[in-house]
């Protein structure tokens, strides 16, 4: 038996495996396949103040070892969330984190304030990296000054664990991680999707209604892993790594590169049990290699 527990700020997680936002709904959708209490946590769907219809269909294109999506934050808004979804989430025996989105700093602040009051939500993930919305989203995540402003504003009203989700579509992701740390975030999570595009040569048209969309899946793993490694070396706060994790070996790569925890995203579409399979695989690895706790392998490549 190895100790799988990890800490993000004051928050202890049962294990370092979390389901990624936008790829696990509100958790319930996956309960037929797995026991959510076997996970470190889940980050529920990207949430906004007001309800959103998202982008027009088609919103998805399969690519080599990956997929593009252009969902555009479809969700029913915080009021609906509080009334109809939160009561169920409050019963889960795992950390439920809400992914926070907005068009303006005021949106982010107001939403964070609302979430600060929900006792069963111990953390939020500030999404400054959504490539699929016209306003807000990635704009905050690719401009250092705007990033600082929104993080600092949210920090002032949000008193629990604040995770900032970073965009990979930048020259220097470390800069954004440092800003998050300086502004008092407990953790950064990375990466969100890479901005990509696909064309159907037969119809001579883009495959997505929005032309560009977010690339996820194993295709992006090498880029995501590199960024996690760079960021983990540069900041002291724990890093949550993601991007193309399909199995425990992939997750181990992220942990060894310096991540304290990982998120499993697109994998759940193909293997709905991916999250718990990763937990099992990490534990098996640790036992086999005689590590008493998962923290022993965090960043181990920098020590080897």
């Amino acid at each position, binding site marked *: 038996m190895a100790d799988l527990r990890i800490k993000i700020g004051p928050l202890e997680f049962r294990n370092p495996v979390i389901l990624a936002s936008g790829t696990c*709904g509100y958790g319930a959708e996956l309960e037929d396949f797995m026991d959510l209490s076997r996970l470190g946590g889940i980050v529920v769907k990207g949430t906004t103040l007001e309800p959103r*219809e*998202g982008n027009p269909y088609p919103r*998805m294109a399969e690519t080599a070892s990956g*997929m593009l*999506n252009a969902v555009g934050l479809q969700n029913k808004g915080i009021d609906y969330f509080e009334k109809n979804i939160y009561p169920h989430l409050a019963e889960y025996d795992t950390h439920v984190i809400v992914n926070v989105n907005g068009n303006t700093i005021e949106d982010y602040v107001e939403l964070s304030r609302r979430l600060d009051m929900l006792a069963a939500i111990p953390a939020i993930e500030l999404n400054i990296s959504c490539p699929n919305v016209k306003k807000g989203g990635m704009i905050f995540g690719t401009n250092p000054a705007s990033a600082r402003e929104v993080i600092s504003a949210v920090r002032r009203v949000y008193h629990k664990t604040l995770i900032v989700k970073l965009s990979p579509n930048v020259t220097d992701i470390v800069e954004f991680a440092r800003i998050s740390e300086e502004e008092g975030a407990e953790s950064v999570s990375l990466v969100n999707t890479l901005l990509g595009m696909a064309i159907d040569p037969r119809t001579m048209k883009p495959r997505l209604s929005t032309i560009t969309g977010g690339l996820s899946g194993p295709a992006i793993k090498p880029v995501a892993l590199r960024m996690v490694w760079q960021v983990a070396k540069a900041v002291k706060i724990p890093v949550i790594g993601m991007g193309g994790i399909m199995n425990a070996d992939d997750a181990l790569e992220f942990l060894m590169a310096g991540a304290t925890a990982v998120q499993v995203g697109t994998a759940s579409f193909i293997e709905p049990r991916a999250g718990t399979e990763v937990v099992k695989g990490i534990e098996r690895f640790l036992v086999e290699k005689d590590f008493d706790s998962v923290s022993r392998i965090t960043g181990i490549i920098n020590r080897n």
Partner: protein
Amino acid sequence: MKKRIEDLTVIENRQLAESFFVIKLSSSDGLPELEPGQFVQALVTESPATFLRRPLSVHDVNLKEGTLSLLVQIAGPGTERLSKLTAGEKLNLVYPLGNSFTLPAPGEKVLLTGGGCGMAPLLYLGRKISESGIQPHFALGFRNRSRILPHDEFRSLGPVYLSTEDGSEGTRGFVTDIPAFRDQHWDRVYCCGPEPMMKAVAALCRKREIFCEVSLENLMACGLGICLCCVVPTTSGNLCSCTDGPVFNVNDLKWQTSG
């Protein structure tokens, strides 16, 4: 019904016509209850070009044998690989997924219409309707005579009317041109096929105020309601065709073309 992920065993893979195959599968755990209109998400291994699962309708269920059949049309690398499955191989499914067709009330007259791989869900739907004591009628449309799929099993359930675009068999034109479709009274019409066909059927039914359900084949990533990629605009906003569908009443759809 609880969803599950399971390796089923291929019992038989029968070629129906050029690029159409019927794959019969058996579950060692015993099949769950399956409703007509529901679908499965099939994992395609050994295809480098296929990353996501492939959605396929429940084509038929044989409770005595404990088998589930899928009707697969080769459309690309995923279905190509599935068409090569041989008896004894495993096929990993996530299922049963989606909602189902609304079964008719006793005494109603129902028409099941479709074409190509859109015929897939109609056989099981027809079987269920037939078991409920109503004889289903089928209107099947094809490009031309050589593209007509064998449909003996449909015939064993009820009358089958055919249309071909070039008139080489049955009515010339589309399913909506079939006299039985236009002229007879129908309480319910069920349709699955290419989008233009479904829209034409929907338009005709709306005009004549016939209850009409269609089964959509939107692009899907997860099939579980967690990716929100498969949405269809409805009168209640964007709905997921994998959980709120794939079956929709045409009156709820915001289709561009109206009847």
